[in-house]
């Protein structure tokens, strides 16, 4: 339904900057996050995924 009225948004001067900002923001964050996540050591990942079960919590990972 919005498709029949949203062309009014396109006529705002300089409006294309908004989707470009959001696209680049998404692209940068998504890529950075992907790299960070894939580089996380397996041991950390295992520790984190065990948090719901962790009764003897290991708070000493980085201490």
């Amino acid at each position, binding site marked *: *339904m*919005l*498709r*029949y*009225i*949203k*062309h*009014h*948004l*396109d*006529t*705002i001067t300089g*409006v*294309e900057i*908004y*989707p*470009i*900002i*959001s*696209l680049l*923001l*998404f*692209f940068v*964050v*998504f890529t950075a*996050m*992907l790299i*960070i*996540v*894939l*580089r*996380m*050591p397996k041991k*950390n*990942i*295992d*520790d*984190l*995924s*065990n*948090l*719901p*079960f*962790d009764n003897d*919590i290991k*708070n000493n*990972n*980085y*201490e």
Partner: protein
Amino acid sequence: MEKEQFYYDNKIVRMFLIATILWGVVGMLVGLLVAFLFIFPNYMEGISWLSFGRLRPLHTNAAIFAFVGNSIFTGVYYSTQRLLKTRMFSDALSKIHFWGWQLIIVAAAITLPLGFNSSKEYAELEWPIDIAVVLIWVVFTINLIGTIIKRRQRHIYVAIWFYIATNVTIAILYIFNNLELPVSAFKSYSVYAGVQDALVQWWYGHNAVAFFLTTPILGLMYYFVPKAANRPVYSYRLSIIHFWSLIFLYIWAGPHHLLYTALPEWAQNLGTVFSVMLIFPSWGGMINGLLTLRGAWDKVREEPVLKFFVVAITGYGMSTFEGPMLSFKNLNAIGHYTDWIIAHVHVGALAWNGFMAAGMIYWLAPKLWKTDLFSKKMANTHFWIATLGIIFYALPLYVAGFTQASMWKQFNPDGTLVYGNFLETVTQIIPMYMMRAFGGTLYLTGFILLAYNIIKTAKAGSAVEDELAEAAPLKEISSKRVAGEKIHPWLERRTILFTFLVFIAVAIGGAVEIIPLMVVKSNIPTISSVKPYTPLELEGRDLYIREGCNNCHSQMIRPFRSEVERYGEYSKAGEYVYDHPFLWGSRRTGPDIHRIGKKYNDNWHFNHMLDPRLTSPGSIMPRYPWLFTNDLDISNTSNKINAMVKLGVPYTQMELDKAVYLLQNQAAEIEKNLRQDPEFVKNYGDANMKDKEIVAMIAYLQRLGTDIKTGETAQN
């Protein structure tokens, strides 16, 4: 390090759990009442507060905010304490949150049937309740963040991130969409008008589904599915990717869908790549949930909790596949305004939300009451009845949607519509409505079994209000990254920074969507012949909102040959510039009425509102006898015009000063028209009709879409 002893607050979890069950029954029961109105439109003969247009918002609000809302809080209060190894930040805030939320629900359950509503879907509540919602939400947020700060667990599990994102985003969405100017204690006008109001409303509608019905439930999934299966989530890496891409997906998707054609080509291409890629996060999430059960499938056969989770996650997968499909132009042209959408949202609500809640309740109850579940067999029965219920609910409505959409579009060789009378397309799908009501009955029956099962469990067990636990306090360490620490783990332990980043992410995303929406007003071409509503029409419009006519009738004719042929000239943005709020509707249970004005005479509308089956045999519209006996309340007419002036509607000083006089004149005129029909004179004689509500309703309906003449395209 020495361990500290402390107590988990189980009482608050139990309170929310009981509220979930109670409101679940109420919400589904109202849904069923509504479903039966499709088959027996007269069975609530003449009771204004039980008419379709007033019950439908009650049903959606009860299902979303009361049932799903309370189920979210149940899970959040249980899992947050355990994941962070601490009691909630403040017992007082927990209690205020609980009772405040229930009071809001009660207030909604009273005001919506009374006709106090703002007409915006899933945001119908009037302004005093909106303020209460925001205050209680702030209480919840403080309680959640406070708990995170005093935690005994360094790292914050992914479920909690989903809760934080929900908290931050819902606050922004709710406030922006509910900006309204109060006229009286229970009446307000949206500050936005027409196209702008529609854009803001559906920005809210789309994201509310994401951040109220999806992200918090995913948080629950990431905690309760591993707990119930007794094994960690399949891939924690995938859950982090799932989280960040979902948060950013909505930010990104909004402006792109709205502003696609304004984009340079490289950005469009990149955008297309992303569109395809972005099915992976939600499906990744679904796969992550399902694969958590790897090696435990034998348990699924016996354990009702896991059965519910499996179907819930599958429902999530189906909805998130269907959603993007519906955004394709071709499919949207078919699905929009039809029962397809109703089927789509109910797969989400009944399977994803409802079954996650049920599984969680069955898992929690034995722990909260320290006993075994009263009857596992009954829980299994619930599962099968409710699953059948979902199938009986959804399948007929998919068929109904396609049937009706294709009937709307069929042409004879001579260029006329095959089903020119809209009613033919309604009576055709009545059998589907019957099956849907049957499906709903099954689902509710299952849920009542759950209620009974939990009551029996609670009676057999004993409630443990405070559960003892112990954990070592956190050692102070530098807020900077420690040697060898990766970025994401570091970020996770910096709560405030993390929350702030989520907020920034959502805020930037919100800003890039909101700023163009705020600017659009000046970009809508005005049509000089479009004038503000007369005082009587404005009052009639408010009655239209009170009765919830927009729940079944759209006021938006799309530029399709089939729609122009059926309804008249397609709708122009410039026609809505004085519509605070917009009333486009989203579902055509009845025909579009944007061009209904002057199509029939006043007497037709009079008879039609009294009994739709008099003028349109087979119609399933309710009767509105109270419009004929209630006097129109004109005590606020001047205030209403005043409020409109404040919102920028160009009423003249004369209209402002003489609002009531003008209103009465126009009402007398309509009464005169009505008296030209001998049938009217025979039935009503000299009875005073001009002071009744029906006259205002007729005035509004006769005005609709008449500002521009057929074929006129104005400056659009």
